């Protein structure tokens, strides 16, 4: 099977170029296996990867124009020749490795931790199964970055717009019955860019390898803001 891969080594290249590799496909092969095979053919080919089962979030790449996690993408599903590029919109460090610092900064900016003002109980803070269910579809995010780097609003304003990942996380804490910083969290988002640059293009929903829905989470935040304003 033919793979056309984006190459760039700042030590020797002035700009990225595409290179074709032929990889023998085995039954059940994932894209990550194919990338590892390419690395066997040419060890200077670099990409991030680790768990191989879609939980560590290291190996997000752009495949035939769509952001995906390589380790859970069966090559049998892909149209040949397979074009593999780094995530769009991020500075390329080398080959498929991009600089994700802006993405992590936006994650940190939503203060992604549980805030509790009441004194802690001796045992667990109680939470009903129904309240816990509200976190399903939110806490599973693996920070792979597929969503935010597929979002045109994030491409234009990565410093100002939180992006789908960070906003999903913001809602994960707003939705948690244990969290006691709702007002502060909402106040922080009340300005033109951080939240409101989302134009419901929904690329994020389409590409999320975990099937999460950041657009819906953003809708929930806006709804809660409105409710609070009334």
């Amino acid at each position: 099977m033919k793979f056309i891969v984006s190459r760039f080594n700042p030590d020797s290249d002035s700009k990225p170029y595409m290179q074709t590799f032929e990889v023998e496909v085995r039954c059940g092969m994932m894209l990550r296996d194919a990338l590892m095979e390419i690395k066997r053919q040419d060890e200077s080919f670099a990409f991030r990867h680790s768990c191989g089962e879609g939980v560590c979030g290291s190996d997000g790449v752009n495949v035939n124009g769509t952001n995906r996690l390589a380790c859970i993408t069966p090559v049998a599903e892909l149209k040949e020749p397979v074009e593999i590029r780094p995530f769009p919109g991020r500075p390329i460090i080398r080959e498929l490795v991009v600089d994700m610092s802006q993405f992590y900064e936006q994650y940190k900016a939503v203060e992604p931790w549980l805030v509790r003002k009441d004194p802690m109980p001796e045992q667990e803070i109680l939470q009903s199964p129904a309240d816990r269910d509200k976190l399903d579809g939110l806490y599973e995010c693996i920070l792979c970055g597929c969503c935010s780097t597929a979002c045109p609003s994030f491409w234009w304003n990565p410093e100002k717009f939180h992006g789908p990942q960070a906003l999903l996380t913001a809602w994960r804490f707003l939705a948690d019955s244990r969290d006691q910083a709702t007002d502060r969290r909402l106040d922080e988002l009340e300005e033109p860019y951080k939240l409101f640059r989302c134009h419901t293009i929904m690329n994020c929903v389409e590409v999320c390898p975990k099937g999460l829905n950041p657009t819906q989470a953003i809708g929930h935040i806006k709804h809660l803001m409105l409710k609070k304003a009334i």
Partner: protein
Amino acid sequence: MALARRRFDALIIGAGGAGLNAAIQLAKTDARVAVVSKVFPTRSHTVAAQGGVNAALANVMPDNWHWHMFDTVKGSDYLGDQDAIEYMCREAIPTVYELEHNGVPFSRLDNGKIYQRPFGGMTQNFGGAQAARTCAAADRTGHAILHTLYQQNLRARTHFFDEYFAIDLIRDDEGAILGALVLEIETGEPLLIEAKATVLATGGCGQAFRTTSNAHINTGDGMAMALRAGVPLMDMEFFQFHPTGIAGRGMLITEGVRGEGGYLINKDGERFMERYAPNAKDLASRDVVSRAIVTEVKEGRGCGPNGDHVYLKLDHLGEEIISKRLPGIRESGRIFAGVDAAREPLPVFPTAHYAMGGIPTDRYGRVLAPVGTGEEIVPGLYAAGECACVSVHGGNRLGGNSLLDILVFGRAAGLDLLQHMESHHRPMDEASVDKAMARLERWDRKGEGLSVAELREAFRRCMEDHAGVFRTEEIMTEGVERLRELREQLSEVRLQDHSKVFNTARIEALELENIMACGMAIAVSALNRQESRGTHSRPDYPKRDDVNWMKHSLYLLDGDQLDYKPVQTKPLSVETFPPKERVY
């Protein structure tokens, strides 16, 4: 260019559960702490833990830490140190509450308390009825815990060095550890981090085996660094094969599947665990279940066209339980086995999973090394998590005890380090720095040679063939000889890529050296232990031998030597659990 240098009070190498829980303790104080991780912290392999973390909260049924302690001692096949096990099982309860307070989204019971599921080897009343002790966030407990710990560290403004690879520890003539030489992966530049205390929290070494549940990054870096610093590795022959990896691929299918009521069948549809463990059946301890599966396959009762696996059946649990409690494994089954677990059984076979052995420590996380006939603390060095061996798992770890281990002992190391922090930095040992730099520069050698990938494949295959579930003298002797040959070949390996920026080929070469050192420790320790205990199963010595072998192995890099030390059978406050025949 002069080597860049930074000074911190403490250096933590590894940002999984152990490293992050150590860091949190320090972040609450004025101490200056650096956390170095070769991957962004939430990529650490703690993220892949599925089933849960054990604590006798008694949310579902009566329970107490003493029963948990008994199960852990028995599960260890009486090789675990009972003082450390008592400490861990007691600490489990406040540890899980603390996690919950920090935000871990545990699944819940109707009364709002943390959901606890049955897991293998867990009983009530010292070996009685099955217990439900494993606190779970669906089947993504490790992910939920790792992300929460990272978030709390962000809140505490912990100083992270993301994507820095630790090359070697720096030590002085007295054996004190002064910090580490690390490599910034993005720039390819080395950096010397000086620290009054260093914590190794680098995780396991499952990449030593060809078929493994472990991530690409689990290359035993901390274990190998300890070996090179003259510290032994303890009980390395005890390597756990998880019974239910996806057949032919190795991805983990949590024991939680069997905890929720799933069971194993052979090609005749027989629930074969009833023959091997009449009481606990599918929830017998992992070593027992893995041996049973391999035996079924060897005796011709395996499933599939090649008869090389068994089935894990869970479709009878129904859509609702599966989507609520086991959503992640349904996803994995679909992706990697092409099977919807809610309709068909999953093909499974044992997969290399967990190192019970590691860097010897006491229950404060302090690293111990043999001196004369006894042992002493290595000044300035701590270890916690899978890279360490306290030992709480002895010959076999129980499911749900590994998240517990990393949390309890990560925390203990952080706290002890704070209490005993020296007031000043010791003088740097430049000869040791040069040695660490030489390890890095060795990979600048140019020319034709073996590739990292070739040698790595030969090594991992050798480990799988010679240090697997069943081990005989003959097969292991052959294995150790072959490993020595492969080790010789390391010097013939050459990189073709000598660039600086994000050179992953160079990282993989450094990792290969590490993982091969761990593999040798496993094989040599295994060959010497002439008994069957826990996961170490010798058809030529089928019985446990408490007279001669109730002792810990210590493997030293220098000459592949072995030493031994006694098991600590005296707990802190309760009576000893004396060794008994281990049946489930």
